[in-house]
């Protein structure tokens, strides 16, 4: 029976939804704000899983479940480039059946350093995990370069598919992958290894372990590595990064509304059609 090694790389991010507009405005005005990464003070909001990574983590579990039904074994690992704030998430993943959990201490703010992040993940795959399949979100909130999966695939010399929406198991450790492309959905059969960058998938929520599951894996270890452990000079590589935050500005997303008048619902519907819909319909 073959055992497929899957690694999911994830990021824990500030919950930007919990920030008020005033926090963003203050960040835009004050370049000297304490958070060197992007001017906006995010220390005070709770942390959440990057939503695309959350999809990737659940998709890996479902892939393992589907392979188990076919009698194929799968070994799941989870990695985060992040500080201690990632450990509660790694413990959750261990309780959910991930066998390996590791984090790489970032040593510096890496939100605008996708090449450094990619080297750390690639170093972990090559030197520690020896995974066959790597899943991660196609983008994340802070920094949001969307380039880590590509840089990672290049560093590993693996193919990379982006905007992945579904992954299904096939015999012989191949996988069938559905990706969103410009003109529709493309289904591809892949031999491994490869990097899959998960997009806006229907599967967006990570399952939740029971207290019993947590207790059973309470003592499972979390490996903590440094850049040096993986042969990466984080400080040196950071100096070579080319992306620098120079400022922030507000995007006006306010919606304009029009109140349609009329004495009856029918009159309002006529007015709406005549003033706003008729031209659109005629263009169809």
């Amino acid at each position: 029976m073959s055992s497929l090694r899957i690694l999911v790389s994830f990021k824990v991010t500030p919950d930007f939804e919990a920030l008020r507009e005033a926090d963003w405005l203050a960040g835009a005005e004050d370049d000297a704000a304490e958070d060197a990464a992007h001017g906006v003070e995010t220390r005070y909001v709770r942390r959440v899983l990057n939503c695309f990574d959350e999809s990737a983590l659940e998709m890996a579990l479902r892939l393992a479940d589907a392979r188990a039904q076919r009698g194929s074994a799968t070994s799941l690992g989870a990695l985060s480039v992040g500080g201690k704030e990632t450990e509660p998430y790694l413990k959750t993943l261990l309780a959910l059946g991930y066998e390996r959990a590791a984090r790489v201490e970032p040593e510096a703010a890496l939100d605008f350093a996708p090449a450094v992040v990619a080297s750390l993940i690639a170093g972990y795959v090559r030197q520690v995990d020896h995974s066959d399949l790597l899943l991660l979100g196609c983008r994340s909130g802070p920094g949001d370069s969307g380039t880590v999966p590509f840089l990672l695939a290049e560093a590993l010399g693996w193919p990379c598919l982006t905007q992945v929406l579904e992954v299904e198991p096939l015999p012989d450790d191949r996988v069938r992958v559905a990706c969103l492309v410009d003109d529709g959905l493309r289904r591809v059969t892949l031999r491994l290894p490869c990097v899959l960058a998960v997009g806006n998938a229907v599967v967006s929520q990570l399952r939740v372990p029971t207290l019993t599951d947590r207790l059973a894996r309470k003592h499972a270890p979390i490996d903590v590595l440094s850049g040096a452990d993986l042969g990466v000079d984080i400080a040196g590589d950071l100096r070579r990064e080319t992306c620098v935050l120079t400022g922030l500005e507000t995007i006006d997303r306010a919606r304009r509304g029009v109140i349609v008048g009329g004495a009856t619902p029918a009159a309002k519907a006529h007015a709406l059609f005549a003033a706003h819909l008729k031209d659109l319909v005629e263009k169809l």
Partner: protein
Amino acid sequence: MPLTRESIVEGLQRIVGPEDVITDEHILVQSSVDNFRKLQNIFDVHTMPVPAAIVMARSTARVAEILRFADEHGVNVIPRTGATATEGGLESAAPDSVIIDGSAMNEILHIDAYNMQATAQCGVPLQVLEDRVRELGLTTGHSPQSKPVAHMGGLVATRSIGQFSTLYGGIEDMVVGLEAVFPGGQVTRIKNVPRRAAGPDIRHVVVGNEGALCFITEVTVKLFPYFPENNTFLGWTLKDMATGFAALRAVMVSGHKPSVARVYDPGDAGIHFSHFAAPDDCVLLFMAEGPAGIAKATAEGIAAVVAGFPECKPVESAYIETWFNDLCWDASKIIAEDERIRQTRNVNRTTEISADWSSINDIYQAAKARIIVEIPDITMMGGHSSHSYINGTNMYFNYFFNVVDVGPEEETDKYYLPIIGIICEETLRLGGSIVHHHGMGKARAPWVKDEYGSSYYILETLKHAFDPNGIMNKGTIIPK
């Protein structure tokens, strides 16, 4: 001879016209439950009797006519406004029920800044009223998490409480006067005066009646000056709830009046505060508000009291302020939560009780210990105290479980009701009240006699006196 479903609809149409009687099957099915059986709506699997109709109340006179019709023909009616109930109060427990929907009675009738009171129809969303009075530098002082979605009539009917209750009180402390319609169509108005000693306070027949006695059409609530610029937040981490309750009590009995006073256990703190609290930390927090001098003195006084508990380690106030500003549940959060449940079958439920300072920690510990052992598939069992008084506090049990091996429609029987049962048993055994602010609904009605003891006589007599034909929200507060 009870009316047929068709006759009920025809009778209502004669009163209000066909356009205000909703008979769309999908809407009726969705309206057969509230958040108590929310999984039935999330998964579209329904087991409750489908209401005969929803009738829109557009005036007090119309409500009177509808109730006269219902009383005459023995039709069960379910009053509702914002439809945000959590305890089954809006469930159609009887066949061919009629929902009287007050959400279209949504006019703010009067804001009296001189006498510091505002009068609103039952369907005015609290958020709308609050936004309007804030333009005048005032506040209702009422801020439940449901503020963006709940309406004034429902808030009064369920004896709601808000996040600033420790300063402003519950809705019962805010209601000045009101208008309500009783079965048979009797319209009653309780006048707006600062206080009176002209016999029993009859407002309390209406406040908290949960639609089991009458339909609330209009309420007048107090207004307060609003000083958001002086809001001051304080927070600490600590290692056990016994110390947390002791610190809360020390603040409450010291003469200080925080508007928010809370303590979270490690499980619940893990959901809200994991960015600054360790996994085994409890979190104690306060908010002081009011005129600058009072807010400052209150905050300093609270800090001095908590300093007497060296186990409590202070945290930066910005952590508490940022969290607090994102606490209310708007429609987008509700939709996101439903989607989370749909995908994971992991369900979050809450049950709130109250007790004096001597008993609250024992209730918390006893209920939590039993639930973890007796209920399967629990993923988080925790809670917090969020409303404190001179003589005690509440406990808001917050728990999550996976729905395993049963359909979504069986979630209440397999998990939710057994958990509620444990919490009610332990609370009653240790002398607390089984409902702090969500209302009895139908979920906790089975425990009503134990909750009331010998005073159940008063409750039962009220029900018989005002609703002799038993048409008002059958099964709510008093079981069928």
